[in-house]
């Protein structure tokens, strides 16, 4: 069994939600606030949405898209916001810029609709992430599979979905498998698993399914 150059420490991550006290009643107001609200709030309404609704594959990609659709009845804008793939971003500010760009285009093209009052306000909240070490520090692919089987889906989210914000240009699993285990093909296959059309439990299983032939090889 191939041993990793460096062990991989799995983390558990939880979030506390703080209410910002800022609301948007129209798409124009959403744009205004999205420009200046804290990065923790943008994180909460994009990355964290996926964690909170990890068992659904319909209806939720990020809170902005959901609100624009359900409360403002603006399907084109909702589509634009839904299409923002959080795994493509290495910083929340990059993601904020694209959210703002999509909103600006809508406000510019449909100024009257952008000022129509929504059915319900959008409430900005911040995510405060608290991390703790799990008991899983792994040195091989086999140990990795066992650990992945046991950790919570929120660990999967932390390492697989929000990892890019912490440095690696991929997810934590692929980074370790590619660099420390030098299994670049496996690392790439794992990186291509779709987080939007699968529940996080399904994502976990798909990663394990990719790993099993390499463990047995």
């Amino acid at each position, binding site marked *: 069994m191939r041993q990793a150059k460096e062990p991989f420490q799995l983390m558990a991550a939880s979030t506390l939600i703080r209410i910002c006290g800022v609301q948007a009643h129209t798409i124009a107001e959403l744009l205004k606030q999205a420009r200046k609200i804290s990065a923790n709030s943008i994180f909460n309404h994009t990355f964290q949405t996926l964690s909170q609704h990890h068992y659904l594959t319909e209806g939720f990609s990020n809170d902005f898209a959901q609100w624009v659709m359900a409360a403002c009845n603006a399907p084109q804008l909702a589509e634009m916001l839904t299409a923002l793939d959080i795994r493509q971003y290495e910083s929340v500010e990059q993601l904020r810029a694209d959210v703002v760009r999509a909103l600006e285009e809508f406000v510019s093209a449909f100024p009257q609709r952008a000022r129509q009052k929504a059915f319900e306000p959008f409430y900005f909240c911040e995510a405060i992430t*608290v991390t703790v070490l*799990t008991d899983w520090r792994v040195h091989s692919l086999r140990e990795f599979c066992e650990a992945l089987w046991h950790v919570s889906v929120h660990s999967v989210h932390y390492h697989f979905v929000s990892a890019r914000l912490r440095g690696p240009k991929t997810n934590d699993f692929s980074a370790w498998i590619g660099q420390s285990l030098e299994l670049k093909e496996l690392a790439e296959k794992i990186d291509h698993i779709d987080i939007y059309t699968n529940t996080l439990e399904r994502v976990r299983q798909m990663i394990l399914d990719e790993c099993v032939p390499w463990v047995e090889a």
Partner: protein
Amino acid sequence: MSAPPPTGLISLGDYVSVIGRAEVDEMRALARRLEGRTIKMVNSTAMGGGVAEILNRLVPLMNDAGVSTRWDVITGGDDFFEITKGFHNALHGAPYEAHEQAFEIFRAYQQQNLANLRFEEDFVVIHDPQPIGLIEARQKPGKAPAGPRNAHWIWRCHIDVSRPHPQVWSFLEKYMKRYDAMIISSPAFTRPLPIAQYLFYPSIDPHSQKNQDLDEDFIAKTLERFGIDSNRRILLQVSRFDRLKDPLGVIQAYKLVRKYTDCQLVLAGGGAKDDPEGGQVLAEVREAAGDDPDIHLLALPPWSALEINALQRAATIIIQKSLQEGFGLTVTEGLWKKKPVVASAVGGIPLQIQHKLTGMLAHSVEGTAFQVRYLLSNPQVAQRLGENGHEHVKENFLVTRNLKRYLMLFLSLSGAAQ
């Protein structure tokens, strides 16, 4: 006074079968960071009502996780609870005729309880408006602080205060501003205040008598005991007999459904010591039900958790047609039991029911009736909603999640979150 110890010892380990070992280990790891810290929870009733139910499970679990937690209950006469019931309704936006005398009585009971309680803990969590004035224990004018100098005081508001009666809000706001943080159940409940506001959803316990698995025999016997036909479809609303729960609207919706579909309606309600209005509302509901043998009005005592559980499990559809709602734990209970729920889009209910994903939202008697009819006609949709709803509760609204949020808040307030 101290709250009575909960029946039966519970431990975090009991929840491994529900939420998994990883989640339980994570909570223990968070609790270890709070080693040596102490917590006090204070509310107004040891039995009856959602807050007491939450604390009855949360407090033992915090202690089991290694965080020493004490639960105290304030005392008050009927005059005090009548006033706080008025405050409760007024904070929900109901009309209220404010008299200075009511505020004086409220203040007098706060002083009485301040004299009886000690505050020596590191974190004090005060639940709802009834004991809100205990914040005065933090530092009385001219005296040394009653508790640890750096104690953190948190006000946990379980009700929707987004449109409060201005005079009652103004009276209570003076107390609120003195807390370090406030916890509310929905971002929609927020009010401008100079303190940090955190979002905690209320929670249910999957192992409590109200939510534990039951055998079919007990469910059948419960239906038989209340004269409910187990072979016909059952619409159920569980709630106190309270105007804000709109039991009369539920009867109207049932009558609309009955034009097309055979079914029975069960309105089952408990009571709580701090709710003196219940008897009067029940009488109004009895009158509206008339002599319809398919409307079952069950005024249940506070120790009826198993019976309520059985009724929820026997129900075809669960209704919660509230006009105002804090959070609506009966909705949570229904979703946990994988039942399709039709509920009003008020208070914390839209946080639980995402329309057509985890249940159905309605805005009127007619809308409620329509959604009930739709689900009765489409049982496969009803089943999918129930399954999604169960997962939604598991992720967000179990007592273990509540415990985790408190641990994170205490860590965050004490600067030890990372």
